């Protein structure tokens, strides 16, 4: 029965067996994917090695506050779709009653939820949405049998036509630098008080490094952050891939010479000297060596994707994080039928116009990606037809301007997701839904237009329309920015009318 939960003799859901789809992981990616599958009536199993839902938020971030906000007071009501732009942490649903789970859980002391609040929000969403998980069920290996994937787990074998892996980018990684075997990884950071009075050396200058530095400012006697390239800050980069605003304090301290030092240097080796360390560095620009004494050294050098034995099935991976190579719909580029949800989705670059990438590594990006991948899986692998509602041509301009003004998908995944409308074979205008922008731009298809929200080379946020004609998108139609992001002005209506009239007739 579509969408129903199968229980085994032990009362636990989803006993080993044959399912159309198996989802692995009970973090936000897995729970969101499961909810989206149920929304389309697709029977599936959701399994996880963890004892409870929450994924990485059961443990990280160390210093207990998230990077992304949920604003309790916003211009839109909590259970509206538009409010999702003001709530970066709740999972999403088409059912209003399942939206905005996070705000009532927060204690009101900050618009950045605490780690336990986030963990609770994922659990609460799962409970309210009826998402059940077979916990303590570890995915161990994988093989192909005919048209089925076989996932071997600690509980037995699961067969499926398609699998969604939402296992995070959670395996600590350290480079093979001499001496690094003796230093701690970010994941092994101890309670802050244990660093009191210590000289701390942090390898890395990404968010995790600055998170540690921020959390330990009140404890360490000196903090050095070092990595080869200069630190990039989100406020300069117009992208959340940079160091987030909440972690800028160490930079200010470094500017004031107040016990924090930020070096652009490679780390050549770490030498253990009794109970302390000597970190041998080399300046990136001058090549000058410098040895830095430290009581504690922490490698904030990133994580890898725990993809088990998927390489043996032909899944290609890339980069230090060993992310899988994926299509625009988060399917393995080399093994069709294997999809990736959650933070792994950051491996899909999108258009990256002006260097700005998507927010797929965060919940507020990944939650929409999950919808896209489930829809792709459902139509391509399970033969489901998803209805496309028609839109009256006279309403098209207003609809598209409303979308670029307030659609949470377009604002949370700027330059990556778009709203698309097409002229169908019967001559009607149809809503294609939210689509990956790169796929719209590169894939041939019926005439239509997709709209996205983007940041231009000067840092201004504005709408951009991409019109497809005779099977291809030949360029972009940028609409002007507005000081208050009001994209419903007469000027915007006129410009959007010009874009739309070419395929939908004069509105």
């Amino acid at each position: 029965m579509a969408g129903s939960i199968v229980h085994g003799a032990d009362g636990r859901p989803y006993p080993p067996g044959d399912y159309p789809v198996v989802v692995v992981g009970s973090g936000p990616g897995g729970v969101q994917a499961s909810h989206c599958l149920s929304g389309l009536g697709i029977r599936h199993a959701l399994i996880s090695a963890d004892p409870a839902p929450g994924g990485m938020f059961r443990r990280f971030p160390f210093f207990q506050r998230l990077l992304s906000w949920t604003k309790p007071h916003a211009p839109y009501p909590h259970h509206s779709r538009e409010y999702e732009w003001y709530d970066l942490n709740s999972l999403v649903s088409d059912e209003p009653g399942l939206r905005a789970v996070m705000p009532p859980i927060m204690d009101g002391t900050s618009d950045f939820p605490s780690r336990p609040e986030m963990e609770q929000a994922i659990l609460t969403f799962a409970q309210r949405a009826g998402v059940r998980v077979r916990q303590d069920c570890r995915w161990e290996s994988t093989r192909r049998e005919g048209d089925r994937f076989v996932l071997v787990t600690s509980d037995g074998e699961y067969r499926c036509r398609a699998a969604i892996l939402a296992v995070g980018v959670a395996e600590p990684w350290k480079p093979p630098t001499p001496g690094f075997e003796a230093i701690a990884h970010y994941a092994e950071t101890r309670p802050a008080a244990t660093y009191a009075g210590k000289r701390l050396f942090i390898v890395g200058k990404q968010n995790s490094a600055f998170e540690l530095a921020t959390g330990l400012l009140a404890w360490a006697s000196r903090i050095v952050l070092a990595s080869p390239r200069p630190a990039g800050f989100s406020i300069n980069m117009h992208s959340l891939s940079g160091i987030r605003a909440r972690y800028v304090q160490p930079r200010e301290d470094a500017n004031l010479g107040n016990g924090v030092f930020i070096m652009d240097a490679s780390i050549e080796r770490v030498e253990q000297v009794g109970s302390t360390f000597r970190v041998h560095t080399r300046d990136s620009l001058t090549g000058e060596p410098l040895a830095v004494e430290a009581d504690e050294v922490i490698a904030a050098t990133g994580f890898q994707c725990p993809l088990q034995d998927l390489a043996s099935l032909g899944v290609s991976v890339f980069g230090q994080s060993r992310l899988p190579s994926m299509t625009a719909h988060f399917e393995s580029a080399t093994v069709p039928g294997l999809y990736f949800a959650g933070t792994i989705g950051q491996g899909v670059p999108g258009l990256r116009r002006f260097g700005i990438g998507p927010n797929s590594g965060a919940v507020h990006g990944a939650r929409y990606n999950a919808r896209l991948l489930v829809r792709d899986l459902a139509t391509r692998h399970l033969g489901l037809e998803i209805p496309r509602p028609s839109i009256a041509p006279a309403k098209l301009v207003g609809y598209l301007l409303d979308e670029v003004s307030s659609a949470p998908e377009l604002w949370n995944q700027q330059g990556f997701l778009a709203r698309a409308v097409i002229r169908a074979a019967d001559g009607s205008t149809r809503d294609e839904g939210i689509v990956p922008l790169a796929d719209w731009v590169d894939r041939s298809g019926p005439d239509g237009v997709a709209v996205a929200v983007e940041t231009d080379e000067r840092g201004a946020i504005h709408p951009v329309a991409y019109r497809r004609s005779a099977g291809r998108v030949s360029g972009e139609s940028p609409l002007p920015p507005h000081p208050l992001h009001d994209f419903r002005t007469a000027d915007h209506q006129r410009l959007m009318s010009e874009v739309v009239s070419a395929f939908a007739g004069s509105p």
Partner: protein
Amino acid sequence: MTLFSDLGPAQLAEAAHTFSEESYPADQRILRQGFTGSGFYVILEGQVAIRIDGQDRARLGKGDFFGEMSLLLAEPPVADVVALGPLRVLHLADRDLREFLERHPAVMYRMLQTVARRLRNANRWQG
């Protein structure tokens, strides 16, 4: 990789951290003819086709780079660059290329050499 062959170990490490690694499936466009906001790419693995108005004009492979003309001239690319198979590249955003080249004149010189070679070959072809 020729472009970076004059860099010392510390500078190489900086370059490695400055570029981001990306992966593209076969047939995926990386540069798009006529679209603004593209980047600079160095091929780590795989091949790309330089495609103008649907016609393949050249191929690039491991160690080659593309995207620099568009960024240096601040104009949209005049060609599509399309992955001919699974492709791994190093990517540098538009805004970061100038700073990177100014920090590493040896890379700029290598890039100039390649651009000059491509111009010479284009002139020969047209002649």
